[in-house]
């Protein structure tokens, strides 16, 4: 078990951009960099990074997952905090990895890396001690708390930041604790369940008619926005890092989604 309370908090940080931002959501990664820089951080991007290995891990194919994780641990060597704009990938680093390396000789080395990993919102609030976010963002949003931040400090941290932004209103919606139905390969191996879950989430979100559906995980948003678009009822989505960045520039969120 990794002790999350002892993670480093220095302002020189390594960015783990995540494979989804690498492939689809470059603006989220950019926003993350700008937000961290605004918070006074020096952001290092290790070029050789790939993925946290979660897809293989979740399928039970642990040797494959370990191969990827070993690579990742090498890429992120050092002692700086590792910041991830995804609760899911962060949880893979500090929770999944310990499970995946049970009984492996290099578990300690892997846990060293996990023991430096922060989800972005958690780092800003609990690592750097930022309690409010400056700027303005005039919108009504629904915030979907990604499931892999359950039991971590990320959910409340992000809420605290968002609620402190001038002009921003976070709308409560029904059955908020429920999963969106993405679940990685679950979304393709259980398409009916996954779709039904996503539709339920969209119904609850649409019922409060927000300007944006916001989350800290692009995987949930990729699934939900893909579903909404396929059903011809597109919904605008944003990562909270994009809101934090745009608030600084008093922009109203002309971000890529």
């Amino acid at each position, binding site marked *: 078990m990794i002790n999350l309370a002892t993670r480093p908090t220095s302002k020189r940080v390594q960015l783990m951009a995540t494979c989804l931002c690498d492939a689809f959501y470059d603006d989220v990664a950019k926003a993350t960099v700008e937000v961290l820089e605004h918070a006074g951080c020096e952001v290092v991007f290790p070029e050789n990074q790939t993925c946290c290995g979660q897809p293989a891990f979740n399928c*039970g194919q642990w040797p494959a997952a370990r191969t990827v994780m070993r690579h990742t641990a090498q890429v992120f060597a050092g002692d700086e905090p590792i910041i991830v704009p995804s609760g899911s990938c962060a949880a893979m680093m500090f929770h999944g990895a310990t499970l995946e390396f049970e009984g492996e000789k290099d578990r300690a080395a892997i846990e060293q890396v996990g023991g430096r990993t922060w989800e972005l919102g958690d780092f800003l609030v609990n690592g750097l001690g930022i309690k409010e976010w400056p700027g303005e963002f005039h919108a009504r949003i629904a915030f979907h708390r990604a499931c892999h931040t359950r039991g971590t400090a990320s959910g409340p941290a992000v809420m605290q930041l968002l609620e402190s932004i001038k002009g921003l209103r976070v709308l409560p919606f029904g059955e908020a604790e429920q999963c969106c139905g993405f679940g990685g390969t679950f979304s393709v*191996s259980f398409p009916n*369940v996954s779709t039904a879950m996503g539709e339920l989430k969209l119904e609850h979100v649409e019922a409060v008619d927000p300007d944006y559906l916001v989350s800290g995980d692009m995987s949930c948003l990729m699934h939900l926005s893909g579903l909404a678009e396929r059903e011809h009822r597109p919904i605008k989505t944003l990562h909270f890092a994009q809101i934090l960045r745009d608030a600084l520039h008093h922009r109203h969120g002309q971000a890529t989604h």
Partner: protein
Amino acid sequence: MPCTTAMAKQLIDTYVAELPPTVQKAVHQSTATTTEKRYQLLGDDFTDSDALRKLAGSIRQHTLEHLDTYLAQAEESLTARGAKVHYAVTADDACRAVTEILLSAGITKVVKSKSMVTEEIHLNDYLANHGIESVESDLGEYIVQIDGDHPSHIVRPIIHKTRGDIARSFEREGLGDYNDDPETITRRARKFMRGKYLEAGAGITGANFVTADTGRLVLVTNEGNSRFCLAPAKVHIALVGIEKVVPSDADLAVLLNLLGRSATGQQLTVYTEFINGPRRHDRPSGPEQMHVVFVDNRRTEVLASDCKEILRCIRCGACLNVCPVYRQASGHAYRSVYPGPVGAVLSPLLAGDKFKELADLPKASSLCGACNEVCPVDIPIPDLLLRLRRRAHEEHVPSPGTPPMAGFALLGSHPLIWRSAMTFGAAKDYLPLDKMPVPYLGSWLKTRTLPKWRGGKFRTWMKSRHGRNGGNGK
């Protein structure tokens, strides 16, 4: 619209597509309401209910890891108070022990109070085959029994049935003309069951807990049926999983406070009964004999596995209620006695050499962790599901719809290949993706679109800022 991709199907996913919308709606409504009540009550009553869940988990884990000591102690406490203790290694052993007790006392009619372990060992069928009439007294379980059905929820066995279904069953069984008023249904059951209680020679129950130091079997019901099973009958037989032991009465303060709130959003269940022996000789009612059958039925195998935490379970059903997959699928989709998240872990483990037949259950989860968050004994269900997925993979159980990960491992550990894949992935935007013969892609695209490919764009941007602030690490 149900997914009809050419890909092989996961059973639960198929089941969901075929579940009548009325059942799905009933299940969703009931589970969502109970979940909401639970949140509310725990929030109102405790400043830190999470700490309490962790404490309860630790009590249970401690007991499991000292089970030999506590089980022996429970046996000793019960024996000292005049109960007879039996052990059963297999389901068959347990059924045989019960039958022998009944036949040697000349009993051919019994009433049963709801118990998951008796479902697990299929006791009713066994008794029927030996000429013993066994009637389920819990209203829901009784309806399951007369319909030859299976419970679809561990607390609400007929969550999948409408009042109309029940009214038809009652009519068929001769309990009056068709009437679907829930009150009438309940009154008819009351009247019918009274006769059964009074003519039964034995009452069969399970137990929610057994305290080691005082040998108390704790039974909780809302209907009062367990009490009724144990008032007129001459013999009480309790079937108890060996993992149900807790060290002492004091531990019950934590467990009982969590059980009622987690199961049904009640502070306490209506009837909480503590039994540690047959009635004393000068009392007018209550069984003269008390038998406790401790059932293993592969629990020791589970204890030896890397999923032993599942034995902490106190069968509250909270994980079923909160589970988005259970809410879509209902209980029968799990094809075993224990549905939902707890069942997805426990059922394959209890299946022994039939593990493969149920190895798909642990896959039927988005790993959202809601089950762990509500579990009153803090069982890390998602971790256990993952370990079972690993086991299934190691045992080469085919898994429909799960992509092989060798290619991913290669990509993910070779940054140069990864980076070029990122750049070339842009080709996807120019390909007719929905026509591609890639089943996983097809399954995704059936109900969702994919975003535009922007592979490598962030890397280029980051490079362009090199030197401005920090730049690229190696």
